């Protein structure tokens, strides 16, 4: 189903994103319990912080600098 280029993403870099995302999640979780530690935010947190936000940031950067 996936293209070869999609498969070969840098796993080591992804693991760092996961670890960083977890630290931020725990810190915010202790502080903002009901907002962060719920069934919606919790399972989607990793996807949003480690995939969607970097992708959105990258798109924004290319939009600004490639004009």
């Amino acid at each position, binding site marked *: *189903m996936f293209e070869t280029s999609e498969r070969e993403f840098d796993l080591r870099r992804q693991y760092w994103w996961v670890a960083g995302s977890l630290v931020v999640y725990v810190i915010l979780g*202790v502080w903002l319990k009901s907002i962060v530690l719920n069934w919606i935010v919790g399972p989607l947190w990793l996807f949003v912080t480690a995939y969607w936000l970097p*992708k959105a940031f990258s798109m924004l950067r290319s939009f600004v600098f490639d004009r």
Partner: protein
Amino acid sequence: MSWAAHEFENYFIQRHVGLKVSFLGIVTGTQLPDLFTKGFVYAADNPAQFHRGWPGVGPTHSLMFGFVFAVLILAVTRSRSWSIGVLLGSWAHTITDMGDTAGTMIFFPFSLEPVSISMWKHSASEGAYGDAAAYYSSLGGVGDVFWLVVVLIFARRALAPSYFREVVVPADPKVWGWLHRRLRIGEPGLLFLYWGFMFYGFGRVIAWIIYARSPSTDASLDLRWGGPSWVEGNDISDAGFGEVLLRTGIGGVLFALFLFGCWKLFINKLWLRGVDPPQVERGRGLSAVFSHEHG
């Protein structure tokens, strides 16, 4: 009630069913018993009775509840892998929640007797944060860590990107394919969605343990059976061991007969008109569910 155990169970089950069951179906099943009810539990006059008893929403924590949803999914979508996933996930939730003092009416409606091993106290009467502090001061929290260790030892391979690509996606190509094509989520993003419940479970265990152990909660650690002692019992049945055993035994036999009758009457037909993902080869009996092709 159990907390992060319901997230970790998903990966343990997935590792043992391989291609034959949808991971998203398992997740739906493990979340199903609390999905429509948990928000109301803390506001109830008697949270344990409301959550696990009858009258109340206790039937959501029964084997019948998962069975009804699984049959409905098989009838409507024809998807065998989703139907079994929801069944296994829901049953895992029901059985895991037998660990607290309230227990679960596993054979509802054939037995209204909650079955419990009373390992830790059902503490919803303390409110959401008090419940968390009590749970992570008791053997309930130890149970969460136990499930985490079980996954890391016995189901570690289920967390590998290659497992996601070769087993999880082919077991449910329609949904993952839809997310990939329609929402334009690449493989890393889908992998993060797959890891999401492991991440959530691990993150919430750490965060709630930090909270429970913080001086502000005043929650002392009590790892004795049935702890913590500073919470009221919340046992919703006053029946003795023999009575529970008898009622549950009768309920279990009736439930088994009910399943057999349903299979003969209509589920067999629904199963035969059901469909599998292309790569799935399903045998008979338990081999129809459990997979060893990726051992």
